[in-house]
């Protein structure tokens, strides 16, 4: 078939189809990152969806992005800051409480090894959440999700030197938090 004839019968991809093709490969990683920030599955899905809603009309811009994965995470991060962190100083009286014995512990316990691992992970999680937000973001992106320092700098809009120095300090603090005498393991080795 001639080229012009091919073109005549070729239906151009709609904007929606192009959008789906572009973002689909990155959705799970966006979700994972959203989960790391929000620590809640429903919030993570809502956050990803919210970002997608905003990006649908920007297909041409998405197509021009060289490395779309980190770019999407950067948009996700900004939206997360807008929706969640800036509401920390909510005008609503934030005094609320709960009975500690009612709490649902999330960590699984599937035998001794899994239990020990879960306990260690929980201690790490606690240590991670005790870090300053700026440090924690860098650890989550670099050490947990595997982005490079340059990508982290791009996502968080920092310079690479700042990322590296904060990462170094964050790791030192985490190591200190998990040092012998600080971390309690339920079973002796």
């Amino acid at each position: 078939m001639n080229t012009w004839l091919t073109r005549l019968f070729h239906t151009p991809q709609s904007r929606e189809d192009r959008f789906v093709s572009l973002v689909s490969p990155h959705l799970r990683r966006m979700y994972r990152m959203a989960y790391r920030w929000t620590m809640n599955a429903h919030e993570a899905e809502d956050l990803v969806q919210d970002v997608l809603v905003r990006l649908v009309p920007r297909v041409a811009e998405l197509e021009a992005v060289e490395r779309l994965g980190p770019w999407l995470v950067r948009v996700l991060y900004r939206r997360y800051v807008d929706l969640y962190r800036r509401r920390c100083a909510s005008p609503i009286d934030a005094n609320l409480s709960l009975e500690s014995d009612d709490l649902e512990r999330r960590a699984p316990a599937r035998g001794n090894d899994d239990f020990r691992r879960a306990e260690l992970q929980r201690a790490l999680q606690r240590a991670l959440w005790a870090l300053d937000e700026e440090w924690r973001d860098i650890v989550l992106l670099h050490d947990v999700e595997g982005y490079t320092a340059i990508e982290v700098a791009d996502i968080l809009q920092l310079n690479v030197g700042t990322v590296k120095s904060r990462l170094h300090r964050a790791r030192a603090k985490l190591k200190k938090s998990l040092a012998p005498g600080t971390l309690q393991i339920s079973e002796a080795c």
Partner: protein
Amino acid sequence: MSTKEPLSHSCPGPLGDDRLQRLLREMPAPEPEVGFERRVLRAALAIRHERSESRMWWFRPMRWPVAATAFCLLGLFLAKGGLRVNAPVPALADWEAATPRTVHIVLDSPRQLPGATIRVRLPAGATLEGYRDIDTLQWQADIPAGGNRLSLPVLVTGGTPEGIIRVEIEHEGARKALEFSIPPPSKDDGGASITTT
């Protein structure tokens, strides 16, 4: 001790960068629920369709007959009795007219909960004053030990909405969810409040 799990992984000892990074890399994150991709993409595209005013589908040449037919049908429909629509989303005017009802939630905490995450989810037809375009609000706060009160300025349109207010509190991986019905408006001040402990 499992052979799969190195001794150094779970036993106290000096923690090097490599080991720390390995632990961090292994930090679990759940997979999204089944159908996640389809769900978020469909929702995002549907919402954008609703908002979009620039698609101008009617401008495409082959759609003119369809548009003309629709126009005629609409004219007939209006002539026979007008348009009655039950809008699922309250209009801005409805929100403006709604009176805030303060819902007080009072609970006791046996200990301090620093950096707890508080999340409030509202049913359809209800929103928090000052946050009208969202149904879920989340923030972090240090919850002191003892009695505490959360006051929610809830706006309701069209009487008491079906559903409940869900308040979730998370602290260091632990979570508790509480659910409350929205009270009817009181007669004296137009608002209403409940106290739950």
